[in-house]
């Protein structure tokens, strides 16, 4: 984590701004929420990036950041937390957008190609779903039999 952040500061040409003390380790969900709420009140950050496998902390942290007027970016693939992310954050990354964000920002050809490939697989699977519905309705359960195999 420290190396990742150090490198990010270095890449932006401001290595002197990096302070390892800004990285706080919190061992657990409730201690993390408490620590973040305290940090928000003390330091009043301008932005909050809340990305990952979030649980009940999404609404608590999101609302606390709203109270202090911070700009928020939220992202999760956890469907139960998506409504809270949408309700509290200014910008959201939902589901697959979360995994495509790095490719979108970096513009690296290999990463972009993987997203394009993913879209083609999606179309292919969608076509298979439609074909499966037609075959199943016509009394030929070929695809469902194949999936059960």
């Amino acid at each position, binding site marked *: 984590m420290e190396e990742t952040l150090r490198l990010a500061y270095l890449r932006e040409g401001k290595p002197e701004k990096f302070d390892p003390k800004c990285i706080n380790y919190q061992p657990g969900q409730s201690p993390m*929420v408490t620590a973040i709420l305290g940090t928000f009140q003390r330091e009043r950050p301008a932005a909050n990036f809340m990305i990952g496998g979030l649980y009940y902390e999404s609404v608590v942290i999101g609302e606390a950041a709203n109270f202090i007027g911070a700009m928020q970016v939220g992202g999760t693939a956890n469907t139960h937390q998506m409504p809270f992310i949408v309700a509290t954050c200014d910008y959201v990354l939902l589901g697959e957008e979360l995994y495509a964000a790095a490719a979108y920002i970096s513009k690296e050809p*290999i990463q972009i190609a993987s997203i394009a490939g993913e879209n083609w697989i999606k179309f292919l699977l969608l076509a298979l779903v439609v074909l499966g519905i037609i075959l199943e309705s016509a009394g030929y359960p070929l695809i469902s039999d194949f999936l059960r195999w």
Partner: protein
Amino acid sequence: MATVFRRAEILILISGMLTGLILFDYFFPVPGLSDAVGVVNTWAAGVSAFALALGFLSAARIHLYYIQRRIPGRWPFSLWLFILTAVLTVSGLISEGSLPYAWCFKWVFTPLGATLYAITGFYIFSAAYRAFRARSLEAGILLVAGIIVMLGNTTIGELIWNQIPIINEWLQLTGQTPAMRALLFTASLGLVIFGFRVLIGAERGYLGVSGEGGS
């Protein structure tokens, strides 16, 4: 020597091999390979334990700094952290059922966690207030759907209009479930592609090393 092991190629090779091994075992269960994957999973548990220790060292470094510099409003809490860590570590090593260890968990940690979880209700209330403001057509639809679902989950809803529970059920099963499944489906596909990018070394942000292969 240490810099050799921190080179991007080495890290990508290790993560690629392990990802490939686990993926292959998932799709093509080969006898013997499953045992190897089991060993890898045990290693993962061991590495997680090391991460916990590393996390504590990181936290200890910061809190020692606060104590040494007597940072106002911080150093007493940092000192308290070390005292509690020492008490709980020693009592936990003696026995998990020892009085300070069990007492702290039962009467301090658990109630504090439950209290924090309980205040989520207030945060949901204020988030819902903002989300349900009918400023656009979409927000208006959300507001109506939200009211119907809330009423449908209470007994008063049926008293107001006996069709509310039926509409509520339709919204949750026919309206919500397909949308959630579509999100899950595409997210799962995105995760597989992300795993593939990790496998081939195209995704290297998690390594904390530069893209050029150096450390």
